[in-house]
């Protein structure tokens, strides 16, 4: 398996190796095919082991302190293994809560996650006007209209964090209990539930974050989209790796498939797409860490990665021939996941319009930034 473009430091590489080996150990025992057939749909032992080893601890996500690169690396491994479970939903919810919630509100949710209680999320992938709307005139903080939407792994009984519209164009996070919900199978090996929000919750208290602006909403949604893109890059690497291996082993007309130029060109296309996705994720993380604006880079990463993933699994399936189409062969998980992840990011129109919201000053030359010891990151403007 090729290494991950956004694993830069020794620490990143150690994270990658260690987390990957943990996931592989459990998937060796119960393959995805068997997990998919179980009632719960994921490996609860792996989930617990991940928590016990501190992979969702305050070292990774705490209130106001997100190690975005580390979270991206973990999700990239989950994507690489097409490992089903509430990993993405919980980690992305934790990141949202950490960024948008104050300590008093966010800490209990994060502490629960650290104990192994999964969190669902409602909101990412939706346009702001599609979000449920709080009735700010009611002291009980009810919903203005009935609403329903999909919560990934929302049937597990943990809390769900709902991104909601509040008054005056602001937004709030709302923490609600999700039981009882009916878990449904997704296009891929994941599960999701449909959450119905009635108008009035008959006295059941909702836990609300403080209000935040549209800009903050846009910024936080871009981070969730970036994390999805990071997870997708894992899938892209896995598909490229398994397909490269397959074409070198499979013999037809007395030679490996890899000798045929038409086959080589499909593989070359997959490499181009994989690199495009990885570089875009890498750039967005770099922008986030350095304090440069990261929203545009994040939305671009999400758009490109999801598009690349679907293209790549298409070529991979073509090159594999019939065997890639069977349930016996792991490629089908990635084929299905590429489409499901695209759905989870929202419509293509939404993604592209998100990019347009942060598409800049009509000057597409490189925007240069310099680290300044006194004032942090400084944007250079001369000559533009």
């Amino acid at each position, binding site marked *: 398996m090729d290494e991950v473009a956004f694993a830069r430091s020794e620490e990143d590489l150690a994270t990658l190796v260690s987390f990957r080996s943990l996931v592989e150990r459990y998937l060796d025992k119960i393959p995805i095919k068997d997990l998919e057939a179980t009632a719960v749909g994921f490996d609860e032992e792996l989930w617990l082991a991940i928590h016990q080893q501190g992979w969702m601890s305050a070292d990774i996500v705490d209130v106001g302190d997100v190690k975005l690169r580390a979270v991206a690396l973990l999700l990239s491994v989950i994507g690489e293994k097409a490992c089903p479970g509430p990993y993405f939903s919980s980690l992305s919810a934790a990141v949202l809560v950490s960024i948008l919630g104050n300590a008093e509100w966010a800490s209990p949710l994060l502490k629960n996650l650290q104990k192994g209680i999964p969190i669902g999320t409602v909101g990412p992938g939706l346009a702001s006007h599609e979000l449920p709307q709080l009735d700010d005139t009611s002291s009980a903080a009810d919903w203005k209209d009935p609403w329903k939407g999909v919560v990934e792994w929302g049937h597990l009984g943990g809390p769900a964090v709902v991104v909601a519209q509040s008054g005056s164009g602001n937004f709030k996070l709302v923490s609600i209990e999700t039981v009882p919900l009916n878990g449904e199978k997704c296009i891929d090996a994941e599960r999701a539930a449909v959450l119905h929000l009635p108008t009035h919750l008959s006295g059941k208290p909702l836990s609300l974050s403080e209000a935040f602006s549209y800009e903050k909403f846009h910024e936080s949604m871009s981070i969730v989209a970036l994390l999805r893109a990071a997870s997708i890059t894992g899938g892209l690497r896995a598909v*490229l790796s398994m397909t*490269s291996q397959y*074409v*070198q082993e499979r013999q037809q007309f007395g030679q*490996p498939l*890899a*000798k045929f*130029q038409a086959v*080589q*060109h499909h*593989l*070359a*296309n997959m*490499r*181009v797409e994989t*690199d*495009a996705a990885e*570089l*875009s994720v890498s*750039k967005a993380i*770099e*922008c986030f860490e*350095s304090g*440069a*604006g990261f929203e545009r*880079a994040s939305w*671009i990463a999400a*758009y*490109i990665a999801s598009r690349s993933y679907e293209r790549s699994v298409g070529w991979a399936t073509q090159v594999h021939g019939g065997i890639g189409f069977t349930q016996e062969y792991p490629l089908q998980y990635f084929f299905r996941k590429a489409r499901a992840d695209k759905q989870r990011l929202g419509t*293509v*129109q939404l993604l*592209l*319009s998100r*990019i*347009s919201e942060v*598409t800049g000053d*009509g*000057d*597409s*030359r*490189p*925007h*240069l*930034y*310099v*680290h*300044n010891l006194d004032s942090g*990151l400084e944007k*250079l403007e*001369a*000559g*533009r």
Partner: protein
Amino acid sequence: MTVIVTKEQGEFVESFRTFLDQLDYRAHGLGIAWQEPEKEERKWFYQALYENGWTGVGWPKEFGGLGRSAIEQWLYIEELSYRHLPFGGLTVTSIGPTIIRFGTDNQKAELLPKILRGDIDIAIGYTEPEAGSDLGSLRCQARRDGDVYRINGQKIFTTAAHYSTHIWLAARTGTQEARGRGVSIILVPTTSKGITIHPLMTQSGGRTNQVFFDDVVVPVDQRVGEENEGWNIIMSALSFERIIPYGSVARWFDLTSRLRSKPRATTELLEDSYDLRAMEFAAELEISALFAERTAREIEAGRVPNVEASISKVWLSEFRERVAKTTLDFVGPEGQLGLGGDDAPAGGIFDYLYRLYPMMKIGGGNNEVQRNIIAQRGLGLPR
């Protein structure tokens, strides 16, 4: 795209941008995408760069260069590319550094200062009618005759030969069977007796050339590197031109965005639905920039980015095709008005982009060969 640079690199680029802003190059007919600069205009520009200390960015200081990093070279080329200005072509970016590496002391002393001043322009003479992607089969022969070579044969697609002072000729000095191992590089003055340069006009309006060599006599000391070892030089020269700037496409994108915000009075130039496609292009443009940056950073780290450059080339050239076609799709009947007409949208740039895009996928090693490189060197698939 956001690029984090060092203070020194940032100041270098800012100064260069400011210098170009103050240079009235448009008055000299430069800075127009579809207009190939005349020899005199080109010379004026290179002189201006030279006199103000903006030439030979990546060359070592001992040879008159600025000794700047690969990142600065990349950003410098991007700036020129964005403004549709000539950047010394391969003479400065590729041939100069190759002479520094393989040339004799006399060649360095004689040629390098002239290259920096813009006194010398060198056209690449590799491709032949029967040797395109398969360069190892080239036939143009340089036969040793005492202290001279006698050159006979033909080259094609020798772009810039008509205004260049020299041709960087890949000639067969060994046997045909030796393929790449029987090739030498000879610097041939275009004023040599026996050279005939015929124009070959392209569908985009640009000119390339056929060059015929009829018993052309060139002193042996015009050979660069050892006899029959030209293949290494060709490969080395190619590695210096690995950064593929996205600037000219970025300029197109910015221009189109401005058109969108100011629809023409007579017709809605681009429809609303184009906006989403434009964002798709914004994302793809960003990837073009990321690929260029990666290539520069690979060079900066001391690696030769073969696969990375091939990926960059495939992506950018095919992106150009998409933008050329899609933009015209949205322009409608007005888009049929061609380059040079008074009413052509955006002065005819869409027409120009459409006619030009195939060359971007063919020139510099066609995209099929690039995909072979990606598959074989990048993924380890068999040759």
